[in-house]
């Protein structure tokens, strides 16, 4: 099916279609804004609310202009259009820069075909390396998220419910401090610990526990540890904030009723902390799945994390459409994940981003 569409038949009129689609993409956000604007004006008139003021009246000319320019530039030029263009670009072939918009430029699924089949034309074999990396990345990110949750939960609970104010401030400070250290440097620190001639191996070999050092990095243990290490706090704080607002009496009440401790956590604390759990899990998953530094620095020679592959599409293969396609696949996966979390935990976007 894909093969047939790859045939170069639409090539003839494609520059026209190309620029048409581009123009359309460019116009879409503006049209949406205009539609809402007209709707708002009409509704204001229909409501006959004497106090309703238009945007211009409320802010004065200078302010209104500033607000429109600033938000328009941000929302449309910085956020929406680049994303739309990236999507568009992923459906283009790889060409030298000067040929884009030229006769060779046409819509194609080549990049996506490459992701699945390892070739822009053939569909005989699968692109095992990239598919495996993709699945592994998603799976490992979920694993890292689970680990972070279980590792952080007890401390978040302890801080929120039983620590005194002085100790709490101390713990907070201790938690925030490492967070100020750059991601690269933290990955580097992990590498010092886990390298074949790193501290742990040196110690273990020096003490005679091991005869040969263990290649933590080669086994990808370093990468997983580094990911968890990097994003631990983004799990910690949402959890803490959520549990902190739980009334201590509720826990006391459950305890009085004879509920065992695990029952209290499972049925009282965790349901209450749901928005925090959702927020923490989303953040950790997103950052892990999109991580670049930790896999680059801590990944073994054979490990293939998806984000570095995207990077390589761009800056080693110099195949930008393919890189765009890969980025889009990653983005869609993340969107699906966020939506799934929102559905499972029954929370909205505002609660996740806080």
């Amino acid at each position, binding site marked *: 099916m894909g093969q047939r569409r790859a045939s170069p038949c639409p090539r003839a009129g494609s520059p026209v279609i190309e620029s048409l689609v581009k123009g359309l993409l460019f116009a879409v956000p503006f049209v949406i804004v205009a539609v*809402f*604007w007209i*709707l*708002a004006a009409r509704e204001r008139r229909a409501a006959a609310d004497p106090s309703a003021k238009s*945007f211009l009246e409320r*802010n*004065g000319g200078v*302010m209104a202009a500033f*607000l429109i320019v*600033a*938000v328009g*530039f*941000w*929302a449309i030029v*910085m*956020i929406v259009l*680049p*994303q739309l263009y*990236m999507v568009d*670009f992923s459906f283009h072939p790889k060409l030298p*820069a000067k040929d884009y918009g030229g006769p060779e430029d046409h819509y194609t699924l080549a990049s996506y075909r490459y992701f699945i089949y390892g070739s822009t034309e053939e569909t005989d074999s699968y692109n095992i390396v990239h598919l495996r990396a993709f699945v592994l990345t998603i799976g490992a990110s979920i694993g890292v998220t689970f680990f972070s949750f279980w590792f952080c939960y*007890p*401390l978040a609970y*302890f801080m929120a419910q039983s620590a005194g104010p002085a100790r709490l401030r101390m713990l907070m400070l*201790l938690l*925030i*401090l*490492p967070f*100020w*250290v*750059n991601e*690269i*440097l*933290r990955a*580097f*620190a992990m*590498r*010092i*610990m886990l390298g074949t*001639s790193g*501290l742990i191996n*040196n*110690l273990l070999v*020096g003490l005679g526990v091991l005869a040969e050092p263990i290649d933590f990095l080669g086994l990808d243990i370093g990468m997983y540890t580094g990911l968890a*290490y990097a994003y631990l706090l983004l799990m910690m704080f949402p959890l803490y904030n959520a549990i902190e607002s739980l009334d201590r009496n509720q826990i006391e009440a459950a305890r009085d009723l004879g509920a065992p401790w695990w029952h209290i956590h499972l049925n009282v604390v965790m349901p209450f902390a749901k928005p925090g759990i959702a927020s923490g899990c989303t953040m950790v998953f*997103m950052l892990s799945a*999109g991580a*670049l*530094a930790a896999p680059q*620095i801590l990944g073994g020679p054979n490990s293939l994390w998806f*984000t570095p592959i*995207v*990077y390589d599409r*761009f800056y080693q293969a110099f195949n*930008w459409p393919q890189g*765009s396609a890969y980025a889009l696949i990653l*983005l869609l996966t993340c969107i699906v994940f*966020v939506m799934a979390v929102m559905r499972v935990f029954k929370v909205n976007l505002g609660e*996740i*981003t806080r």
Partner: protein
Amino acid sequence: MTSQGVWRAMLGFYLLLFFGFLFGPLIVMGITAFNTPNYPQAYPFEAFTIHWFSDLLGDSELMEGLQNSLIIGAGVVALTVPVGLAGAIVMTQVYWRARGLYYLIVVSPVLTPGVILGISTVIFWKDVTRVTDAKFLYDGFFLAIVGQSTFISAYCMLVFLARLQRFDRAQEEAALDLGATQPQVFRHILLPFLRPAVFSSAVLAFLSSFENYNTTTFAILADKTLVTVLAGRVRQGTTPEISALAVLIIAVTLAGAIAYEALRRREAAREATALAQARVEDGGEPGPALAAAT
């Protein structure tokens, strides 16, 4: 009694594990900055040295990266603080039917992987450059600033929104009622109220920009920032020079955090005494206006 003892022991062990995990690598890295071997090594500790620190100053690539990082950070602050402020104000005024969509759009960069922000920024501006022939737009500094600002603006907006939620709209009306124009209200009332948020969002924006890797590495093109230089070094191999740099960064951060905390406490103490004073005076003085009138 004993079961409680077991619990306490477990808690202690867990806390030790947690903070060991958090701080262990950093401490070890700190030690390697002062150890002589060419490879960052904490054990065995051979001899104390500070020459990794002096090497740092002579490292022109790092210094250039640092300079670029500072420039980009300043650009990001200059762009994101006004944009975040505007974004927050628009959020409070936007047509209610459009509010959900608006929120989704402006907050989405926070949840989008950084690499994607970098990629899409580069692709978009490359195309803009191709169409408009404005070559200066396809520049690593400009792209890094714009790419980072995509999500950092959202951070700033969230900071402003949190502050705006505590704003009393009656103050705006009071100023209007006293004869102020809308721009005057903005300058005299809203902006001073938001000033603490302007400061904290600027700090947040600068730090987020300074340590960003994922977006920058795509958007910076051929230039380099401190973080991309670091990443390149660490990937190629490691030297204790990087440990030394980390030690410096941690020291600066620590000093900043302590200064900030001290400042905050002094402010809090000042407010508390002022409030106590006001309470004492709340006895209801005799009405002099009454005396004057009769």
